[in-house]
């Protein structure tokens, strides 16, 4: 385990080290809400951020396994391509925005726009998510063990959304679907991947696109 301390080394140096290593275990100390921590990693490193992080923590991750022992600011793991990011605290808005692959796990709550424009990654939130989550989400899965805020899945494409708790309201073109055995299998395996064993896959509802906005149509004009 190598320790990198933001009190003694600047962000640029710490990110440069992480971006150039090929393997190993790293711990980042004194994160103090700093932005752009552990961004643009490409190798299968294990990185632990020991504290709260700012915006875009673990942004655009490829292959690395990143754990954040605290809360994170906007856009954690934005545009992640692969690997995993595990937030032990809560996440601010736009968690996992546009992420294309990999797994984002948030133990606490996520703010507004969680999984906005999701492009294939999986997100598992143990707590609740804020409004406009999965807005324009294109593919991948969003699992919410708690509640969802207003306008869940607005303008949804092909992302699956699983919610165990209450949904305050559904966005335009998002509807509840029948849970198929395949859906259930995906959900169980995501809970398992996220290390969540005390919440069972039963009792979740699944939501998807009603696909009424897929082609411009006069009767849907007000929804555009």
């Amino acid at each position: 385990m190598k320790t990198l301390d933001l009190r003694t080394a600047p962000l640029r140096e710490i990110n440069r080290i992480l971006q150039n290593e090929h393997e190993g275990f790293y711990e980042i100390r004194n994160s103090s809400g700093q932005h752009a921590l552990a961004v643009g990693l490409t190798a299968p490193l294990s990185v632990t951020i020991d504290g709260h992080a700012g915006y875009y923590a673990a942004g655009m991750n490829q292959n690395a396994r990143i754990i954040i022992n605290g809360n994170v600011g906007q856009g954690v793991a934005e545009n992640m391509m692969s690997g995993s990011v595990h937030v032990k605290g809560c996440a601010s808005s736009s968690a996992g925005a546009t992420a294309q692959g990999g797994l984002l796990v948030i133990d606490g709550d996520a703010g507004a726009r969680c999984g906005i424009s999701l492009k294939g990654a999986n997100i598992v939130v143990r707590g609740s998510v804020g409004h406009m989550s999965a807005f324009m989400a294109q593919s991948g899965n969003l699992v919410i063990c708690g509640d969802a805020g207003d306008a869940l899945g607005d303008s949804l494409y092909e992302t699956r959304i699983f919610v165990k708790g209450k949904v305050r309201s559904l966005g335009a073109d998002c509807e509840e679907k029948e849970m198929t055995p395949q859906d259930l299998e995906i959900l169980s395996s995501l809970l398992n991947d996220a290390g969540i064993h005390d919440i069972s896959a039963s009792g979740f509802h699944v939501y998807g696109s009603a696909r009424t906005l897929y082609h411009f149509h006069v009767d849907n004009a007000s929804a555009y």
Partner: protein
Amino acid sequence: MTKNHHDVTKTFPRYSATFDEFTISQIQRAAATGIYDIRGGGTKRKLPHFDDLLFLGASMSRYPLEGYRERCGTDVVLGTRFAKKPIYLKTPVTIAGMSFGALSAQAKEALGRGATAAGTSTTTGDGGMTPEERRHSATLVYQYLPSRYGMNPDDLRKADAIEIVIGQGAKPGGGGMLLGQKISERVAKMRDLPVGIDQRSACRHPDWTGPDDLEIKIEELREITNHEKPIYIKVGASRPYYDISLAVKAGADVVVLDGMQGGTAATQEVFIEHVGIPILAAIRPAVQALQDLGMHRKVQLVVSGGIRTGADVAKALALGADAVAIGTAALIALGDQSPDLASEYANLGAKPGTYDDWQDGHDPAGITTQDPELAQRLDPILGGRRLANYLSVLTMEAQTLARACGKSHVHNLEPEDLVALTLEAAAMTQLPLAGTNWYPGKPGY
């Protein structure tokens, strides 16, 4: 009374200026379909433009340079503020962002070939970077857009510069569209969308809003690309003074200002014709903003929207821009709107020069289409050659004008080399009305 004989007891039938033929057809179209009109291209109305400015060539009080012999530089460096690796171009004319998706792969390749031959850059668009595009463009600017379609950190690192798109001149404040006909299998795969659906792009970035948060986004992009690549920020011209100021404050290396004449692949007609301001009106306040911050020429200004000739290029530079970008003109150079295609345009209800149904993907020139048979019609080598020719002409024309004003580099053109031909242009640019030393708002006339 014969048909040809005018009945003097009656007036001629007359169209209303308010409800003219085109307006009537708009109302009829709206009533028939119930949805707004979507088309490609830029604004079609007449606007104050560079044509309303004239150069004051040298004569007695100034000395011209000899054409063809005396040096007149055209090179430009973009991104000198923070980036470790600025962009060096041989000509101040660049190719604006246009996506694979909006354009065929052949058209993108032709743009890359032409620009590379001319020593300038091309720009990706909504939908990401194709390997062909990277291969054929020696200098490639990667657009970072609200939709983040095809956004990939590997491509980010492969790019020569990153352009964060806040808006474009055709539709400041609006998101993009690509209709189902153009979401082919390859386009769908790149954008992670179902094939054939009508794509709706976001108008705001998903993970930041406003300049204070943009500053943090820029830090992330720089951290991911080792602080090497110039960060451009592109805005549609609407409140240029503030937008340019804020782009600079947020940390831009280069600002790109797109006037309302700038084209688009597909947007509501009402947006194209009624939102934003002409590039002529936008440059002066943008330059003012840079000067007020002490950043003119330090943060480079690229302007676009209706650049057609070397005169437009020279005038934009004289007003204070560092470079220009062309889009529509580049497509015409490739072969769009060609008279050779008149009969095919007629089949689509258009004529060469009026065709704007780019959203439908039936472009007979093989440019704004994803139909493999149509796309095949554009020879990328020939198209690239035509674009290189055109870029050469633009550069030589701008040089000619600069020499006539006694400049050994096109960047030494200045507002004092210009006058305005109309009151509107004088008011917008604060250049004196030709033959006077006065512009509207200036006291003492």
